[in-house]
């Protein structure tokens, strides 16, 4: 689990094993390596995008143990032992995940650069909502008030960590809403085991 000094080639690098999309990858990393750079530059998983590289744009969003996180502020060495899901692990082979299909059907993008992060974030938004989490625009956060409807206002707030410089927000909100509506019927869906845990 934890990197040990015995496996470290120097005190400033370690040999780590990352669990990504169900696969194990063992690689030496300089401790300064972010998860984002490890995914893209070392594992050739370039679906995850680098935007601002300072946690402000959401382009690098992945799922860590089923929860969305920005991989640019996550050190790779500190991600050892966690289940990492990237955009490459969302579909079931050639069959798109309903969130991906909704983005495609409703044009939830223009250039597409922010889309992998948008989709990973949207997957988590739907799970967080299903788990009953309120948001900053939820009028009454007390549990007695129940789960808020996933209105466009709620979706915009919950997706606010993902910027789209093309400004495709209107379509993105529609895509997330459609994917959320269909989530009840996804009994045989392709969600990873980690995201199922997040809803439990």
């Amino acid at each position, binding site marked *: 689990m934890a990197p040990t000094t015995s496996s470290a080639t120097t005190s400033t690098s370690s040999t780590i094993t990352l669990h990504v999309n169900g696969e194990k990858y063992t690689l030496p990393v300089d401790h300064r390596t972010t998860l984002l750079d490890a995914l893209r530059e070392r594992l050739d998983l370039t679906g995850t995008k680098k935007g601002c590289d300072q*946690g402000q744009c959401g382009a690098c969003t992945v799922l860590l143990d089923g929860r969305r996180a920005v991989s640019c502020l996550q050190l790779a060495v500190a991600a050892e032992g966690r289940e990492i899901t990237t955009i490459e692990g969302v579909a079931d082979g050639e069959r798109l995940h309903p969130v991906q299909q909704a983005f495609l059907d409703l044009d939830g993008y223009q250039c597409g650069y922010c889309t992998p992060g948008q989709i990973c974030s949207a997957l988590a938004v739907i799970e967080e909502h299903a788990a009953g989490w309120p948001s900053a625009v939820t009028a009454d956060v007390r549990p007695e008030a129940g789960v808020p409807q996933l209105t466009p206002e709620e979706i915009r707030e919950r997706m606010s960590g993902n910027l789209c410089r093309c400004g495709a927000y209107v379509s993105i909100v529609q895509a997330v809403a459609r994917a959320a509506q269909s989530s009840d019927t996804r009994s045989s869906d392709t969600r990873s085991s980690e995201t199922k845990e997040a809803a439990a």
Partner: protein
Amino acid sequence: MREFDYERAHDVTGAVALLGADPDARYLGGGTNLVDLMKSGVERPARLVDVRELPLDRVEFTRNDGLRIGATVTNSDLAAHPDVRRHYPALTQAVLAGASGQLRNMATVGGNLLQRTRCGYFTDLAKPCNKRVPGSGCPAVEGEHHNHAILGASAHCVATHPSDMAVALTAFDAVISYETADGPGKLPLAEFYLPVGDTPHLETALPPGALITGVTLPAAPVAARSRYRKVRERASYAFAIGSIAAALDVHDGVVREVRLAFGAVASRPWRARAAERALTGGPASAEAFAAAADAELEAARTLPHNGYKVPLMRNLVVAMLTELTEEAAR
């Protein structure tokens, strides 16, 4: 970025021992602020002790003892916890008002308390900053300061504390627990952040090498009637230009108990005790709310571009207390 050693701690004692007395070592929680500051060169640790897996990830509530929050509880888990939402709703609202869903999943409660100011001069290595390089000067006083402090600042530093969560914790009399090599200790949040004075680089009263282990909120029935409101320059995912946590107990039109704390107006979350004193035992009226705000803001010292924060905070006090009064009447 400077090269660094990385070690992962599995228990509190081990974490404190790993960090030791090394001034170049830092605890790593979610990393959402520290890793960012390491990238920009503001922080240059030679060693990181990862504390994210410490068994400090529980939130527990009892009616007698209040709320106990472990230091590694994520911001998301704190905000979503049913007992927090039920008994301290302003705390849930404050946490949800901060950052983004991704960052709240990563960020820990301990790290949230210790996050650094977002003053642009602090994060710009090309500029002087008394907080970053003591004695180098403060360009904000005569420069870009429209979002800087109006309370408790000094000529040496006018930066604000960026946390939303800490504002609600301040209103609820939070106590910070920590561990050191010499044993555990506690600090009321009111004494946790140091006055700015001429030492803005010294931010907290934590002993060197101390690890925050948790936060305790005493039982406070008034907290069940609380709210947090944040004013910012866009609708979401931005730091506050002014915020308020308020709790109010009104009976027959008289204020029995009130809690008020301000955010984004000082180097620390600002407990508005003068306003609370002015209100307690008096009428719950818009006039009294405005007078109480004025009593608190009498101490405000503004700069050319942040004077708007005085009427902003006054309006927030009146609006929030009016809403809470109306809610109590229903």
